[in-house]
């Protein structure tokens, strides 16, 4: 009788056994991302939190705990309240403008026309151009002496040089300028979001609505917009977070002027914490963004969950 040899099974090491388990492997693969976030986001955030309740300055790098004294001093300053208000106006103004432009842009780019692919590629440029270069270009357009906008208005006899808009010198116009630049940077992103949302809507739903007699506006506001709202809300979260924490446009264009009219939290935190060396107060100013952003993100995510269909 032939004896069939039993296959010799190599002893499986404990490590190999662990790696074969899906949940272990998942954790191993996701670990670098978590470590990255903890080290480069979590740790600096904790550090900033501690700075904000300490007396730490570049002049005297001490870890002495001072409680909420830094926050009290900041809130007592009327300039800070103006800065906080400016940050809200800047953020929500530019997001609103960006969304409106994005919506229009998306509708235009959905329609077939010659060179649509090229236009779609070019429209992304404001989003891709480095903020420093873009802001400098805008700075020239708003320049008091060489503004191409004013030049056009004067050439068209709409205004005289004396009456030409003082774009960066008038507090309201200066705020409008920083909003316009940020909206200009944001709107390609909004177009992409809207395009992704609109093209994902099944055509038969649109067709059914059309057959039922729904016109452009009804299709737009009662069918398309409600259906793409979750994805738009996600885009909006990104936009709000990035704008609320942004300082680059203000730093490059107005330095918070005229007379503090465009100073925003990011800029004020940078000036106090880095330029003036008062790290603790700079961190405290910056941390005012945290609760605001947290509330905005929670509300938006809850809204999305309720709207999900």
């Amino acid at each position: 009788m032939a004896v069939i040899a039993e296959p010799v099974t190599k002893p499986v090491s404990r490590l190999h056994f662990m790696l074969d388990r899906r949940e272990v492997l998942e954790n191993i693969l996701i670990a670098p991302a978590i470590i990255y976030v903890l080290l480069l986001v979590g740790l600096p955030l904790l550090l900033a939190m501690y700075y904000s309740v300490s007396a730490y300055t570049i002049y005297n790098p001490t870890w002495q705990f001072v409680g909420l004294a830094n926050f009290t001093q900041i809130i007592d300053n009327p300039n800070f309240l103006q800065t906080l208000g400016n940050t809200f106006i800047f953020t929500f103004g530019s997001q609103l403008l960006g969304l409106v432009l994005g919506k229009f842009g998306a509708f235009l780019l959905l329609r077939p026309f010659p060179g649509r692919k090229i236009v779609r590629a070019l429209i992304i440029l404001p989003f891709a151009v480095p903020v420093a270069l873009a802001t400098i270009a805008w700075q020239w357009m708003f320049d008091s002496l060489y503004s191409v906008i004013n030049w056009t208005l004067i050439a068209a006899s709409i205004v005289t040089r004396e009456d030409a808009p003082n774009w960066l010198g008038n507090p309201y116009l200066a705020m409008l300028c920083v909003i316009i630049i940020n909206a200009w940077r944001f709107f390609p992103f909004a177009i992409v979001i809207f395009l992704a949302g609109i093209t994902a809507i099944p055509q038969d739903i649109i067709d059914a609505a059309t057959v039922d007699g729904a016109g452009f506006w009804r299709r737009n506001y009662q069918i398309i917009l409600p259906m793409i709202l979750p994805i738009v809300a996600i885009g909006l979260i990104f936009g709000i977070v990035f704008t609320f924490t942004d300082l680059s446009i203000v730093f490059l264009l107005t330095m918070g002027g005229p007379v503090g009219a465009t100073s925003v939290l990011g800029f004020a935190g940078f000036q106090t914490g880095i330029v003036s060396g008062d790290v603790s107060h700079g961190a405290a100013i910056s941390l005012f963004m945290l609760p605001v952003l947290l509330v905005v993100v929670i509300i938006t995510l809850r809204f999305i969950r309720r709207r999900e269909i």
Partner: protein
Amino acid sequence: MEISRIPRVTRRRFLKETGLTLGAAGVAPLISAPFVSSALADTKTLTIVQWSHFVPEYDKWFDDFTKDWGSKNKIEVTVDHIPVANVAARAAAEASAGSGHDLFGWNGAGGAHLYRKFLVDVTSLVESVEKKYGKVSVIGRQIGYNQDDKTWSAFPDFYINFPSMYRKSMWDEIGMKPDTWDNVRIGGAKLKAKGHPIGISLGHSNDPNTTWRGLLWSFGGALQDAEAKSIVLNSKETVEAVKFVAALYNEAMSPEVLSWDDSSNNRYLVAGIGSLIVNPISAYRTYQKANKKGADDTFVMEPPKGPARRIMGGASEFYGIWKFAKNKEGAIEFLKYYADHWPEAFKASEGYNNPCFANLVPKPMPILSNDPTSTPNDKLAVLQNSDEWSASPGYPGPSWPAVDEVYNDFVICDMMAKAATGAMTAEESVKWATQQAEAIFKKWHGKT
């Protein structure tokens, strides 16, 4: 027949091989480090960072100068020129990281006193240069010198003065000279009516911070006392100065000055619109390159005299050596050599860099006393004595972190602008600025 098969990549195999590759890549530098570091040790280096000079030729000269010094001393010198707006953030980053360049060049407010604990004491270096080239001027002493323990945190390199530049033909036409602030206002109003206003920025940048401080001092006002102990801003003199600026703005300037950055007034002059600006001579040099005829009509004079004195803000430049610098000795040796050749630096800057040591550039100074590019040749001669009317932001006291923060928050500029635009009365504006300054001083008094 043997069939070659591509081995199947299992999850386990992928992890194993990737891990080995990454491990090897990680270990390689550790193994080679001793050999590489010993090779590097044979080459000494000196790294310098400073702002990109407004006179580009100066940067070119400086790069060649350092290279020449490096080759004489067998030291590889690297000079990084960064935009002036990035200096503060760069310094903070290097100090926080405890790593960076050996020699750090600061511009204007801040720096030497703020980073005092991070900087090598250069008292003996400054004293040795003082012995050779005379005492450090008032403006040179205000930022780098520590009054409390009589030490130097940084080496005073040069200061930038802010003279007046006016279009002679325009002022001749109205029969006036802008030698006092009152004349600037009265003449400016006349010239504004002819389409040539005064061009002094009321925006958020260094020039207005410097110029309006100068005007405040010339009216007898100041932010702090000579000992930097208390704020003296809320005074009759300050209110008068603010009232004057409001009148100057409304009568002789245009609202566009509220939006200006540091280069706007230069363009205003070069465009042939402005009848007077207060600025370093870089504006004049730019004008010379753009329009020789217009530049010939532009005259440089001392800043206007106020009711109390003739004085103007200036910007001091300093070199600090980090305590964590890899080549501290090299940095000190370089600064000694640099001081001995400072007149060359002066010439390369076309008279823009002004000496902080009394006899560093003996008078008559080259270029300033006889500038072949200017008509007349002695147009810039008045700048030879600019140390007599130039002061740093803390005047009459020293600069220190609280003074810097008042500067960086544009409190003095905004005090002037609020009254000028009618947002506040002069009294309210001074009260507002005093409250701002008091909060900043109180904060820093507890931290220094």
